């Protein structure tokens, strides 16, 4: 499987994303934001960081980089895209995901491990997560409070687009367990077609036990599993 990790000026979780994917035995390479090609990648990762210094708004300038047009076309053709932290902010600014990420309610930059409840297993990003498993994955952001209009929130719920919600260690969705004040404790969502995911927590920073958790791998393994199934089907057909 080939992963493309997009590099913007001031991306800073790009190396970690490459490391996490290679650890799982798959290929991952950087793609510079001024390029127009994904070099045949099967999956796109838009990594965390502070693209363009977070000037104007987080993700607002990165969405106009040339590669984002290619990513948009890739996604429109059903390609799997995952935006992590700043990547989530970029996908929202680009209109590829609904809503926006605003300043944390506490006004503090929060950097800590959080617990996540998987709200739906019906997605390429969550299908391999065990049903009762709470994920322990770190967040590191100042602007991760998910906001959308009541109509959009309703639509996310109706279409089963909420993937992850912040919870306490027992799986309760409490106000205290959310690091940022997101509506409905939302930590990650997908689009209506279920091939684009945005999430504030960093699965690539939870990819081996020395980092205190391997739970992030479950998200990447879900993607790999989904794509292997698709590849098998294509082979059978041909």
């Amino acid at each position, binding site marked *: 499987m080939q992963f493309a990790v997009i590099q913007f000026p001031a991306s800073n979780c790009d190396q970690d994303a490459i490391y996490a994917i290679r650890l799982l035995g798959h290929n991952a390479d950087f793609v510079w934001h001024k390029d127009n090609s994904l070099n045949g990648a099967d999956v796109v990762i838009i990594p965390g960081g502070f693209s363009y210094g977070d000037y104007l708004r987080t993700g607002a300038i990165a969405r106009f980089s040339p590669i984002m047009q290619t990513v948009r076309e890739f996604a429109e053709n059903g390609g799997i895209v995952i935006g992590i932290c700043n990547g989530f902010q970029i996908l929202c600014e680009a209109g590829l995901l609904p809503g926006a990420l605003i300043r944390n309610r506490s006004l503090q930059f929060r950097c800590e491990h959080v617990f996540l409840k998987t709200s739906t297993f019906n997605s390429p990003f969550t299908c391999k997560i065990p049903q009762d498993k709470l994920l322990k994955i770190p967040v590191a952001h100042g602007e991760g409070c998910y*906001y959308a209009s009541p109509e959009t929130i309703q639509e996310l719920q109706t279409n089963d687009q909420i993937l992850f919600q912040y919870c306490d260690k027992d799986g309760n969705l409490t106000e205290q367990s959310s690091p940022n004040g997101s509506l409905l404790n939302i930590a990650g969502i997908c689009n209506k077609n279920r091939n684009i995911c945005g999430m504030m927590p960093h699965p690539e920073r939870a990819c081996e036990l020395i980092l205190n958790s391997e739970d992030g791998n479950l998200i990447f393994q879900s993607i790999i599993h989904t794509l292997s199934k698709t590849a098998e089907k294509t082979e059978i057909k041909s």
Partner: protein
Amino acid sequence: MKAKIIITPKKAVLDPQGKTVQGALEHIGYKGVRAVHIGKYIEIELDGDDRETAKKQLEEACYMFLSNPVIEDYKLEIE
């Protein structure tokens, strides 16, 4: 010509900065502060003197780029 753009958070959107500053104003002793909203001010210096065209283009820029309509409102003035 100069364009002046004021961007403010939509009323329905939580504005933690505004809330914190409101609390601080009250703490310092200013009374009767009903709400504080913190936004951005952008000044753009423009060539030429065709105000109509400039306004049209900047309206688009405000909507597409300078503000995020999901969370912000904007006011544009050209002088």
